[in-house]
């Protein structure tokens, strides 16, 4: 109880878990970059004689219903995971930041834009993505757009809030009165101060993009079946889970650990930014 009542005096905890998380992410990047070297088999190599083998032997994580090596598909699946993550983050930031900044700079325009963002945010996220998929069709690129649209809205909102606050800062007013142009203020004052919160956002977006993409894949509306993806692997293995439960474990675990690691990183970044890094001793 005392700990809570004196929360303001606690120094921020160190986190060994975050280091493990970063290590895992590096592993994923290695998987993606060096897939042909790491994976023992080709991800689409069919081997009907060896269907549904449990882990062990040459197939360290077993095989699926086509006899494809699970481990190899996991390794190649990292590529799509990274692609989706990067794609969604880039799209969300590239569209959300301008919308947010412009809305803050030009209040009249801002009211309209933020209203539109509000409308988009009134759609439950997955339904919005599904709606877009229906219009655009299936596919990796469309999945990136669909999921990206969700995070465009959250990014725009956050950027709008931060930009408004920054606009009211004394040093911005000082720059204004010194004759600085709008563009100058944006690039010199507003954008640099947004890097930290945007980094935090990016981590979380990357994490939730994994879950969103996995859901789309699972419904059969994301990546086409010929591309190895962890979500697809789960979708395909669904009917075999009682017979071959290892097929359920590894792809899911990869999704979870990737999202978890990214969440840990995001949390650590956010704590770093916290002004609570003040001295323990007040006055």
């Amino acid at each position, binding site marked *: 109880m*005392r*700990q809570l009542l*004196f929360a*303001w*005096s*606690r120094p921020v905890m160190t986190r060994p878990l975050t280091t493990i998380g970063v290590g895992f992410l590096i592993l994923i990047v290695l998987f993606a970059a060096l897939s042909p070297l790491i994976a023992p088999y080709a991800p689409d190599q069919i081997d009907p004689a060896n269907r549904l083998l449990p882990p062990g032997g040459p197939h360290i994580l077993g095989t699926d219903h086509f006899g494809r090596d699970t481990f190899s598909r996991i390794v190649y699946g990292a590529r799509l995971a990274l692609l989706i993550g990067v794609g969604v983050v880039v799209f969300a930031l590239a569209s959300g930041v301008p919308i947010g900044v412009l809305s803050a700079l030009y209040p009249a325009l801002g009211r309209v834009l933020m209203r539109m963002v509000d409308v988009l945010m009134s759609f439950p996220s997955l339904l919005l993505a599904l709606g877009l998929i229906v219009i655009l069709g299936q596919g990796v690129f469309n999945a990136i757009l669909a999921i990206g649209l969700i995070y465009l809205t959250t990014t725009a909102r956050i950027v709008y809030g931060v930009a408004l606050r920054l606009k009211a800062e004394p040093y911005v007013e000082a720059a204004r009165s010194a004759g600085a142009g709008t563009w100058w203020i944006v690039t010199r004052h507003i954008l640099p101060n947004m890097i930290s919160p945007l980094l935090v956002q990016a981590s979380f977006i990357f994490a939730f993009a994994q879950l969103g993409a996995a859901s789309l894949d699972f419904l059969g509306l994301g990546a086409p079946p010929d591309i190895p993806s962890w979500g697809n692997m789960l979708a395909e293995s669904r009917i075999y889970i009682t017979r071959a439960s290892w097929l359920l474990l590894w792809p899911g675990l990869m999704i979870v650990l990737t999202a978890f690691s990214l969440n840990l990183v995001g949390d650590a970044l956010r704590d770093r930014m916290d002004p609570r890094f003040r001295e*323990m*001793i*007040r*006055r």
Partner: protein
Amino acid sequence: MLSVENLVVTVRHGPEIVRGVSFAIEPGEILGLVGESGSGKSMTSLALMGLLPPTLSVTGGSVTLDGADITHLQPHERVRQKNGKVAMIFQEPMTSLNPVLRIGEQIAEAIRVHDPGTPPEPRARELLDMVRIPDAAHQLDAYPHQLSGGMRQRVMIAIALACRPQVLIADEPTTALDVTVQLQVLGLIRDLCDRLHMGVLFITHDLGVVAQLSDRVAVMYAGKLVETADVGPLFRAPLHPYTQGLMDCLPDPTSDAVDMATIRGSAPRPGDIPDGCPFAPRCDRATATCRTGPVPWVQGPDGQTAACHFPLNTKVSA
């Protein structure tokens, strides 16, 4: 009567913040505790209240109230003390009240803790009257955000008075208020001190306020007291160079000088305090003696005391 003897407050596994402070407060007197930020005055007040966070603790000395040792007791542990209570008001009235509870309820809470038999509502009204809040009955139903800063500070005082304290600690209560409101609150504190025969420890960095309000003054620097005196003698003839320095820093409205006086250098941080007199690095009168060994307490006329090898008034005795 509050008696503080050699109080030492330390950061756990760290330096001392308060390094042996002693003073006493009699009923009906206001002691002004002056010092710059980081001198340890706020930590002293929190230690007196028992509100130190777990990272700090009292590692030496004692706090005695009417003979009872309350040094290591937290506020909720002191409720049953018969020998009187210590209450405190803080610097930021705007954020010191719970925003979702009505004023009356927050005062009643204090009444229920300390005065269990008393019906809370009439007593709360009485307290609001005591702190000169008009229309007390209505204000009981108000929420904090509906009141101005000055009013909120009065409510804080009312809450503090609910426990019928022997001593009231006021930690810079007017710093965040407008000057006109400041005067009203200060006047109220003086008045209550006289009427209720309370002792007041008034903490501030503002010498002007000290001059107006206090009966006695204690000057604090780097975790220690460097001078204590009655308010008149202190301002007429301070003994300690630091005290003189503080007074020199006050701008003189009658002079034409453009530059403001300062005390050169800056206060040492806890854990970084030099041997000998802590003020020596910034003192124009310092000699080798000042930088080594303990500093003697010297007595001046009129009960003034200071910790200095070379006090400003040569008519002193050690």
